[in-house]
């Protein structure tokens, strides 16, 4: 398989794999809302959302970030 294709597939798999633990973090976070400072809650929620946004990027775009693919 073409190395670029291989890396793209790897990114896809990783993206799928990360989504479930990320869900767990968000679920657990929703359970402790109100028990921690609102600012603290928003900071963690913001971080999970950032990860989610990254996962929504196309694998090719992510590869470009690490210089894995030539322009």
């Amino acid at each position: 398989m073409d190395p670029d294709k291989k890396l793209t597939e790897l990114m896809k798999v990783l993206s799928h794999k990360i989504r479930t633990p990320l869900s767990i973090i968000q679920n657990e976070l929703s359970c402790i809302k109100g028990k921690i400072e609102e600012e603290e809650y928003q900071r963690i929620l913001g971080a999970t959302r950032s990860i989610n946004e990254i996962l929504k990027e196309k694998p090719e775009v992510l590869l470009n970030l690490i210089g894995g693919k030539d322009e």
Partner: protein
Amino acid sequence: MSSENILLVDDDSEMLISLARALKASGIEAAIHAASRHDKAIEILLDKIPQVAVVDLCLDEKIGVESGFNLITEILSQDSTCRIIVLTGHGSLEYGVRAINTGAANFLEKPADPLHLAALITDGISQSDLRRAYSKLAIQKTNFIQSPVIGRSEATKTLLRDVEYAARNNLPVLISGETGTGKGLIAKTIHLLSDKGKKNFVKYQANFGTADLVNSDLFGHQKGAFTGANEDRRGLLSEADGGTFFLDEIDELPLETQVTLLGVLQDKKFRALGSNKELPLNVRLLTATNQDPDKSVSEGKIRKDFFHRIAHIKIHVPALRERKDDIAPLANFFLSKLRDAENLSVLGITEDALAKLEGYDWPGNVRELEAAVESAAHKAQFENRISVEAENINIGSSGSVNSGVLSFHEEVRKFKLKLINEKLAKNGGNQLKAAKELGLDRSTLRRLLSEE
């Protein structure tokens, strides 16, 4: 206990725990049941009848997303009122479209905001409840409320639930029960309440027929297919196209026909005798037997493979002696039906008379009770009520019905059937010939047989 149930399916047990906690924290009050495998999910589905199922697409690494799609299909084939929300890490337009086409109501990508998911679940519960209420209302409002589902006993409540369930699904149903319990009416009720209710309901009873004749009845034949086939004939499966085909007395179906029909059910296509043209099979199959189906299989009257194909849903219609609480409502139902049909002035049945009816075992089941009420009502037509004192119930001191005294209508019905059965036997089960000899058309003969 909550009557609202949710099923969560995900191969990750930590995910199931956290999702259940998050949904509770988001205000979901329904009972939450979790499954990490397909078989466990189906077990919960059948036991708890959840209104909503939240399903992950990848339940088995080896099969991939197909495992989730297979589960969605099975859930909906078991209970079409269950709302499905797909929650997956495999979010793509392709999978989303496919999930909706498979019957899912929503498609969400992980991680989903628990509040958003909770809102969809709440909406899903309402939608599912509405569909279920509609189905119940349809049973109550329909003119086809029939004797087998009338009553207050636990057995009848279970039967009603089974009928509703069968009506919501499109799977083959095998109805068992003693003679006179109303299996045919149960089949008709399932048909009328199903999404095929406006299409044809075709009933067929295979007794008296050889395999060739039965095959010809079912699949039709072309002119010249066998001696006596003077013209093309459409089969009953074609007549039932788009609707329901009810095969009564299934253990009487010739074994050769069972083999042929098994192939037809598997391939979903058939050919008329003598024809090369394949026709699509588009009917829902309901079957019935007055024997113990398992015994019929062990005795070789029903092939095992055929049995498994026709008995996806099994409904047992209990004997009247097993639901004596239903005798009074049934007797009153028959009396009211008769009063409307024949303008009788009999208003009711005395407590003593009802007690007498309840004290009898009714070997002929609901049909025998109907005949007894009919006979009593005619005898009591110049009185207000059917009573024991007036001796208008034909139950002797020994507690057995005086079977020699039948109503006029019952006598006529039995005579008609005897005549038809004699002609059928004489003509080797050929309904066309029997009808011709009796001066009837074939459809009238079939209708008379179906009233049996």
